[in-house]
């Protein structure tokens, strides 16, 4: 029997409503949420600390600012002026103090608080991520569904094979290829910059292609597993129609695992669309962070990491909760 069906369809009375809410609130209990948030906080602190030491131990950003024809003492002067001459642990303590006071050190390039700079870019990344993820989930989900439930060999194998083949194509290569075909040859889309909704198509498509194989494979596997489950066999024995069987007893029960994968992909999107954003000049946080790394703008890199890590934690928390709501087995 499908677990979705175990939930009351509608609360007819107040008592029933409370019972229904309790059923939903289980994954949202303060203990559960508190534990997840604490874990998330530690993960964010760990990520920022690791990145801090990795950056500050491996180079001096002041050197990039030295004019080529400056006197030899200029590098030392700038290093001292910017505080990079102090031991890394000392710089870390200072940095932590600043962060706890909500006062991040200024971005080296922008000469301003890096938090608003990073947050300003988050919207563009979310926009691109939403398009890429939606496309990826729709196409990947359809391919997974067809490959698990298709009646012919063609529908079961061809779409999945194409998806698996796409998995072997690096994002940057697909992006360049899509630009060549859709922008250069066909002239349908702009090749450079984010020029309105049309400018979203190429990066969105490129991003989606990265999700399709994972979503398709996981969804297919989940569907196949559920198709062989006892409750499906029982339901089939009752003479239920194929379409209804799939809709009511198979698809819903296959979503939990798939949702977890989508959640991980969505988290990766926040910082992982670096390549796509860079190829298409998309003004998101991925492009900002990679450029910050290249320019050794350490304060900005750390804030980007912080934003991405927090986003990752929150998305995963949301996915866990959603998964638990959809599939109560996961609550335990």
């Amino acid at each position: 029997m499908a677990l979705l069906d175990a939930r009351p369809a509608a609360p007819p009375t107040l008592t029933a409503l409370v019972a229904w809410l309790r059923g939903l609130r289980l994954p949202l209990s303060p203990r559960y949420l508190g534990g997840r948030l604490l874990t998330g906080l530690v993960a964010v602190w760990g990520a920022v600390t690791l990145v801090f030491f990795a950056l500050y131990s491996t180079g001096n950003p002041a050197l990039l600012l030295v004019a080529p024809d400056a006197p030899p003492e200029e590098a030392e002067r700038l290093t001292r002026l910017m505080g990079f001459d102090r031991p890394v642990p000392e710089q870390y303590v200072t940095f932590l103090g600043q962060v706890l006071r909500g006062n991040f050190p200024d971005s080296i390039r922008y000469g301003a608080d890096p938090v608003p700079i990073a947050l300003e870019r988050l919207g563009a990344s979310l926009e691109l991520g939403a398009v890429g993820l939606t496309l990826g989930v729709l196409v990947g989900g359809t391919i997974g569904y067809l490959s698990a439930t298709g009646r012919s060999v063609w529908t079961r194998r061809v779409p999945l094979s194409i998806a698996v083949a796409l998995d072997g194509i690096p994002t940057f290569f697909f992006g360049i290829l899509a630009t060549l075909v859709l922008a250069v040859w066909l002239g349908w889309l702009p090749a450079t910059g984010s020029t309105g909704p049309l400018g979203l198509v190429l990066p969105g498509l490129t991003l989606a292609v990265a999700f399709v194989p994972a979503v398709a494979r996981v969804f297919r596997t989940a569907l196949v597993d559920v198709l062989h489950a006892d409750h499906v066999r029982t339901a089939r024995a009752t003479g239920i129609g194929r379409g209804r069987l799939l809709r009511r007893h198979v698809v819903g029960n296959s979503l939990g695992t798939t949702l977890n994968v989508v959640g991980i992909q969505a988290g990766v999107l926040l910082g992982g669309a670096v390549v796509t954003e860079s190829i298409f000049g998309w003004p998101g946080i991925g492009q900002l962070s990679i450029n910050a790394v290249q320019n050794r703008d350490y304060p900005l890199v750390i804030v980007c990491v912080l934003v991405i890590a927090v986003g990752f934690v929150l998305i995963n928390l949301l996915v866990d909760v959603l998964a638990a709501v959809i599939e109560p087995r996961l609550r335990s």
Partner: protein
Amino acid sequence: MNNPLRRRRSLAAALTAALAVALAATLAACAADSSGSPSASQEATGPRPTAGDQLRLVLSRQLTSVNPHKGGSPDSQGAVVGSVYEALTAISPETEVVPSLATSWKQLSDLEWSFTIRTDAVFSDGTPLTADTIVWNFQQLLDPNYKGTSGAPLRKFVGSVTSPDPTTILFHLTAPAIDLPGRLWNDYIVDPTFAQSHNIDTESLGSGPYKIDQLDLENGATLSLNPHYAGPKPQFSSVKYTVLASEAQRVAAIQAGEADIVLNVEPLSLDAFEDSTTYDTILGVGPQPLVLAINEEKTGTPLADVRVRQALNYATDKKTIIHGLFKDAVEPLPGQVLFEPYQQEDPDVKAYPYDPKKAKKLLTEAGYADGFSLEVDVPSGTYVSADLASQAIAAQWAEVGVKLTITQTPFPAWIDRQYGDVQKGADLVYIMWGGQYRDGFQLFDPFTSDHIQSDVVAPTFDDLVRRLQAATDEKAQRELVDEAVQNYYDEAHTVFLYPSPFTAVISRAVTWEPRPSRYLYAQEVGRA
């Protein structure tokens, strides 16, 4: 001096093959004759495209900031800042020092220069630009605690800047600088009140032809006309600079017709536009010399021996590299970093010929008959075909027994290592040095021992350059230049390679006098 770069026009696909070939050959010959450039040229026919309302220029590196006191690469913010701000002097496309805010200048003594300035300069908000404004800017630049970095080179020889009257700026030097006007071209002037109340890394107020409307350091900027600009009105009222950091992006932008001028295209990529009726291409000689800088200071390095350094110069087949990677657009450096058509060469010094036998003989004499290993640092994605060129050099040196290990790193790490401990640095660095203006002995600076990125031991050359900076007599200057060139050649303090190739793809809808220094100023682009 004529601009050494001339546009070449591609053949129209509609023409018959025979006519096209004949025409191409004729035009190629004409262009070669007129420019002296080794690049061939082809002319497109057919309807000329019309420029849109907005000028579209492509930059190949992200903007670091738009701070007028932090300099800037020509491939990034240097072009934007130069379209928004003005300095006392400017550099023409022909690499001459020309007036800008200053209308004239003269050297009053070894240690004093006078500049006469314009009185009509106005910032884009209507605030007048005065002599006091200029003095305040230089006071900031000369302040050792100021965060603006472009003043650092000035602090080597400028003590103070004053203004005795509203049209005169006086520079009081601490050491002679015969090319002072040329060294001031990128010390841009910003309004003091604005600079003190705004973040000039991302906000701007200049007196140049344009003002910035939108800025995205990662992706570019949109400019519109400065209504108060005192000079000739630019032909485009709106300009969009777009950052396209990769070669593939730049080529795609051209192929999609989304750019009017694109620089820094790989020479071999220009072939893709041979049949274009929309774009012309330029492949010529850039003003910057590419060399392998030598670390002579490392303890126990074989590179301390002049015979070894000479051997490496003999073992490098520059012509083959130029032919294979740069389509013969440049010639090997003539055994010096001065080269035609940008500087007057010392005619007595010629390029080290490719002679592996002589290289081997010199290595044997130096006690390295069995060869040795060296490491070269190459910055990734910075110089045209640097990775392939360094691989070619490694293969050539292997023939004389020198094993060259190539370390390719991102630009920041590459810079870091050069500023770091000399003992941990690479033996050689693949590097390009930029002389922005002709007759600028600033070009010698990076090759002296005390330069911030230099690891050579060249006391004689250093002394000659110091004397050169103090020389006021033109004949004495030339003699010192020739002596310095000869010394550097004899001592082989560097491995001379070739000038940087200059490449550009330009829409036929616009006109642009090619600026080999690669500063793509919007005000210099017109409608065809």
